[in-house]
């Protein structure tokens, strides 16, 4: 019985605070999502907001854009991180300096990263000058949607490759060497060794980091908001920005809450998948 009291004492403070900051907003969102709250005429609308979501092209487009963005970012960052980890896996002063350099941007505030790439991509910034030189002066990420997307992808690769790289590095150094040695003695080529002896050992950490990056890529806001503000037009407006615009700028709280709940549901589903992969389906604590 004493241990029951002890357990309660250990768990309660964190649980109470997290319950307050984690659950109250959920109930509030559920409450807002079926009404038109904070408007001149507050009324109960049931599931109308949710029905409306499917006909709101700005919403479906923003979701689609977020998914496409996440897919492109992952397709570049995962192989690049893995490749860099292979290049830099041997210990040594030069390799650790480069490792630190690639890891550095993961510690920077996203808003600052947006500003850095805004400076870079301006007509007089290094990126702007270089791209203008290549494209003959027509580079303008603030007017051309393709250029805006290119800049955003480059910014995200710069920001997050460090993470996929570090996870890959940890995974590579944790590989069981015996498979690789026996593959080598059997006369396998470098590619065969990677494909049959190394890659199977890396699948698990790579799946984990892919899911983590996927969730984070869907949540991207600060950098893009600073760099393009969703423009030109709506061409880089992601789901987070649309929710923010509707909820916190146009003050349509009910509809924004419905969108938030749908978005949250998607993210929680992905997190659950990630944890299952991470723990091999056992759940986190034994």
């Amino acid at each position: 019985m004493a241990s029951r009291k002890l357990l309660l004492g250990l768990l309660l403070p964190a649980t109470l605070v997290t319950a307050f900051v984690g659950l109250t907003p959920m109930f509030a969102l559920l409450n807002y999502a079926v009404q038109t709250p904070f408007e001149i005429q507050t009324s109960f609308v049931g599931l109308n907001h949710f029905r409306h979501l499917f006909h709101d092209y700005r919403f479906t487009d923003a979701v689609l854009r977020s998914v496409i963005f996440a897919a492109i970012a992952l397709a570049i960052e995962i192989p690049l991180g893995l490749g860099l980890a292979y290049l830099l896996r041997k210990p040594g002063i030069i390799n650790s300096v480069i490792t630190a350099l690639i890891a550095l941007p993961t510690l920077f505030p996203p808003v600052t990263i947006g500003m850095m790439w805004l400076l870079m991509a301006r007509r007089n910034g290094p990126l702007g000058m270089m791209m203008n030189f290549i494209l003959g002066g027509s580079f303008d990420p603030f007017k051309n949607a393709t250029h805006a997307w290119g800049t955003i992808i480059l910014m995200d690769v710069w920001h997050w490759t460090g993470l996929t790289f570090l996870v890959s590095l940890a995974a590579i150094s944790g590989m069981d060497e015996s498979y690789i040695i026996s593959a080598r003695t059997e006369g396998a080529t470098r590619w065969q060794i990677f494909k049959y002896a190394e890659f199977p050992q890396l699948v698990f950490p790579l799946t984990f980091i892919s899911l983590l990056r996927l969730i984070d890529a869907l949540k991207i806001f600060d950098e893009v908001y600073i760099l393009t503000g969703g423009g030109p037009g709506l061409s880089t407006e992601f789901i987070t920005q649309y929710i923010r615009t509707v909820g916190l700028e146009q003050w349509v709280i009910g509809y924004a809450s419905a969108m938030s709940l749908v978005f949250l549901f998607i993210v929680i589903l992905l997190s659950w998948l990630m944890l299952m992969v991470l723990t091999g389906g056992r759940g986190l604590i034994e």
Partner: protein
Amino acid sequence: MAKTNRKVLLQALKIIFLLLVCIVFILPIYFTLSVSISSKARINEGAIVPDFYPGHWLEITKGYWKSGIINSVVVSLACMVIALALSITAAYAFVRFRFMADKHLFFWFLTNRMAPPVVFSIPYLMIWKGMGIWDTYQGLILAYMVFEIPITIWILASFIASIPREIDEAALIDGYGFSGLFFKFILPLIKPAIGVAMFFAWLFAWTDMFFASVLTSVVAKTLPAQLLTALGKVGWGVEYGPAAAAGFVTLIPGIALLYWVRRYIVKGFTFGRL
């Protein structure tokens, strides 16, 4: 002969590629610093090479930039201490006790970490205003707890799990009470984890812009939110100089930290990222 040639070529390609990677990763950091120490005229010309104009750095030591820096430091340090104090006992409980729905409770903690800030921001704004803690330190710190408690619990729990249970039992048999066991045995053993957890708790509050921009306006406005305000004036002639200087201030802790932990980089970094 052909084989050695190929090897030399591959080696050269590798060096060129890595050199390119270094340039790409340094350039934005260098350029931000360069813009922050260039006069306005030089910034308009490009500011690839700075003219060492000190005005922007002097400007951010005054007025709203200064209060932004102070608020950021206060809030992130407070978050670090509070998040750690709340979660260290909970992490221990999750590892050492079995209780009803323990796995579900743990997963629920972590889902809060994964949830997008935008989802919380609308209800927080309404509730915080109702409670009268909007635009205050305590309001902002409370909001950050939704992400920080899960991160710190996760980091600490995975370390505590690696401590053999026999240590707990031996300490209890030797007549230490629970607090003796906790402070004399567990805490010293998880010192590195406490460092990592404190760092990530601090980092979240230091880098966040979303909550800060929604939940504060003047009194408790942090540096990232201040940066958003400064850069949001598109069309009004954004002052890039002071923004670059303030932006560089937000980078300094990361750069300093990397220097200190350069030896443990892989282990320490991959941990707190869930």
